[in-house]
C-alpha cells in the first residue's frame, strides 16, 4: 500500500488546492463543496453500517445536532466558528454515546428502529424549543466566502477520510471491528467486547458528522428543522453508501459523487418534480440491494479481482 497510498493522497490534495483557482463560477464551487459534504456524510454513515453491520437510520440527527449546536453557540454565545463547529461534533458524539449504550448491545433491528425514532424526536425537540427558533429555524451571521467554505469543507472531509483510512484499514482497531462484524460470538472468544467497540465506532461516525453539520450551518447561514433535521439527509447518505458499496471507504465516496451530481442537475432542471427524486432514491436503493448487493464499487472491484485471478492462472 504505502507509496501508492501517499501518491494518491498527494494528487487528491493538489487537485483540491487548485479547484478554487480554476473554478471561478460560484455556482459550480458550491456544487463541488456540496458534493464533498455528501462524500463526508456517506463515508461517516458507512463506517458504522459497513464496518459493524449496524444501520443508523438517524444519521441526519447527528448532522442536525452539529448544525444547531454551532448555530446556537455562534448566535447566542458569540463563539468563533471553528470552536463552535468542534463543539457541534462533540455534542453529536455525546448523542451517539447516549443512544448507543442501550441499543448496540442488541440486534441490529433494534438499533435501526431506535436511531430512526431518535431522529424524529430530535426534530420534534428543535420544533418546540425557543433556543432553536422553533419551526422558523435560525439565521447565522452571514459570511459569504465560497472559497473559504470550499477549503474548510474539503479539508475536513479529507482529514476524515485519511483518519478513517488509518483507523479502519491500517490500524489494528479496524481488524477488531471487522472481526465483530463477521462473527460476534467468535470475536468475544478473542477477548473483544463487541458493545464497547461498536459504541466507539458509533462515536467515531457521529463526531465528524456533527462537525460537517456545523460547517454546513455557517455556510448556508440558515437552518430549520425540516431541511436540516428532516429525513432527506439520512435518506441520501444511506442511498449513496449502499449504491456505492457498503464496507469500503471508496464505494460510498463514489456513490456520493454520482448521486450528488445527479441531484444537482435534477433539481436544477426538474425543480417542479422534486418528489420524483424520492422515488428515484428509494428505487435505486431497493434495486441495489436486490441486484447489486455489493454496490457499484464492490461489483466493479470484484470483477477486476476475478479478471486478475483468471489472468494469473493463465500465465501458469
Amino acid at each position, binding site marked *: 500500500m504505502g507509496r501508492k497510498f501517499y501518491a494518491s493522497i498527494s494528487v487528491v490534495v493538489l487537485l483540491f488546492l487548485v479547484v478554487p483557482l480554476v473554478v471561478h463560477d460560484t455556482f459550480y464551487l458550491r456544487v463541488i463543496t456540496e458534493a464533498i459534504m455528501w462524500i463526508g456524510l456517506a463515508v461517516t454513515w458507512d463506517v458504522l*453500517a459497513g464496518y459493524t*453491520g449496524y*444501520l443508523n*437510520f438517524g444519521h441526519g440527527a447527528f448532522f442536525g445536532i452539529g448544525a444547531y449546536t454551532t448555530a446556537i453557540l455562534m448566535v447566542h454565545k458569540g463563539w468563533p466558528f471553528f470552536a463552535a463547529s468542534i463543539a457541534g461534533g462533540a455534542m453529536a458524539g455525546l448523542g451517539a454515546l447516549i*443512544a448507543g*449504550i*442501550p*441499543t448496540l*448491545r*442488541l440486534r*441490529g*433491528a*433494534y438499533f*435501526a*428502529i*431506535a436511531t*430512526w*425514532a*431518535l431522529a*424524529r*424526536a430530535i426534530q*420534534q*425537540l428543535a*420544533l*418546540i424549543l425557543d433556543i432553536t427558533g422553533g419551526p422558523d429555524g435560525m439565521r447565522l451571521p452571514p459570511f459569504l466566502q465560497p472559497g473559504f467554505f470550499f477549503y474548510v469543507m474539503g479539508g475536513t472531509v479529507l482529514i476524515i477520510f485519511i483518519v478513517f483510512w488509518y483507523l479502519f484499514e491500517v490500524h489494528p482497531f479496524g481488524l477488531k471491528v471487522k472481526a465483530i*462484524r*463477521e462473527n460476534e460470538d467468535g470475536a468475544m472468544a478473542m477477548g473483544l467486547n463487541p458493545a464497547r467497540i461498536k459504541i466507539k465506532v458509533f462515536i467515531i461516525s457521529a463526531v465528524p458528522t456533527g462537525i460537517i453539520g456545523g460547517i454546513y450551518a455557517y455556510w448556508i447561514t440558515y437552518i430549520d428543522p425540516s431541511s436540516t433535521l428532516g*429525513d432527506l439527509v439520512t*435518506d441520501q447518505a*444511506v*442511498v449513496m453508501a*449502499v449504491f456505492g458499496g457498503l464496507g469500503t471507504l471508496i464505494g460510498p465516496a463514489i456513490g456520493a459523487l454520482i448521486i450528488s451530481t445527479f441531484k444537482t442537475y435534477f433539481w436544477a432542471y426538474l425543480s417542479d*418534480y422534486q*418528489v*420524483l*427524486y*424520492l*422515488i*428515484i*432514491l*428509494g*428505487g*435505486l*436503493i*431497493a*434495486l*441495489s*440491494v*436486490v441486484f447489486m*448487493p*455489493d454496490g457499484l464499487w464492490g461489483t466493479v472491484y470484484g470483477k477486476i479481482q476475478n479478471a486478475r485471478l483468471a489472468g494469473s492462472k493463465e500465465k501458469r
Partner: protein
Amino acid sequence: MLQLLPQAIVDGILIGGIYITVAIGFSLAYGVMHVIDFAVGEWIMLGAFMGFYLNRWLGLEPILLFPVIFLSFFVVGLWIQPLIHRVLSGRRGNPVLMGLVFTFGLALMIRGIALTVFGFYSHSIPSSLAQGSLFFQVGPIFVTIPLIRLTGLGYAVLVTMGLYYILHRTDFGLAVRALAQHKEAAGLMGVNARRTGGHVYGLYTGISATTGALIGCIFSISAQMGPDYTIFAFFVVVLAGMGYLPGVPWAAFLLGFVQSFFLIYLSPSYTMLAVFAALYLILLISPKGIFGKGV
C-alpha cells in the same frame, strides 16, 4: 382537571385499539420473517388513500370497503414478499441488514410515489358513523365516545381474535408458528417457508391497509402520514417484545394512554418526545419488552 381523567382513560383505550391494528400484522411479519419492515406506515397510508378514493367514487360506507382493501393489499404483499425473501436468502455477508435497507428503500419509493400522485394535501374519509357519539354523565364527569372510534376498537378486537383463531386453530397457523420458532426445522417438517411467508406478509399488508382506511375515518390522512405510524408500530412492537403477539394489545393500549394524556394534560407536540423517551427506557431496562418474551 381531575374530571377529565375518565375521558383521558376512555380515549386512551379507543386510540390504543387503533394501535393494535397498526402493529399486530407488523409484529406477526417480524416474528416469522425476522425483518423489520420500514414500509409499515406506507402500507397504512396507501390503504387510507384507497379507502378515500373508493369512498369518493362509489359513495359506499368506508367500513364496507374493508374486504376489498384487505384483499387488494393481500395480493400486493404476496407480490412483494418474494423480493424480500430473495434479499434475505442472499449469499452476501449480512442478509438481515440488506433486508432492512430494502424495506427502507421501499418505504422511500412508496412515499415518493404517493406524494406525486396524491399531492401534499390532507383528507379525511367521510363515514356516517363519524356523526354519532355515546355520551355519559355522572355528576360533574362527562365521557364522550364517538361511534366511529368505538367501531375502531371493535375492529381491533375482531382482528386480534381472527388472528388468534388462524394461528391456533388452522393448519396454516400451525405452519406459521412452526416457522416462527425454527425456520430450518419447520422446513424439514414440510412447511413451505416461501409460500407461508408470502401469506403472512399478505396478511400483514392487508391488515395494515385496512387500518389506514379506519384511520382515515377517524383522523386525517396525507401522503406524508407514513413515518409517524411506522414509529408507532415500532414502539408497540418493541414494548410488546419483538415478534411476541400476545404483548401487542397491552403495548398498544399503553401508547394510547400516553397519547391521550399528553393531548389532554400537556401538549400534543411532546407526544413524539415522550414516545421516544419511553422507547429508550425500554431498550435500556428490558429490551425484550415488558413481558420479556421478545426475540
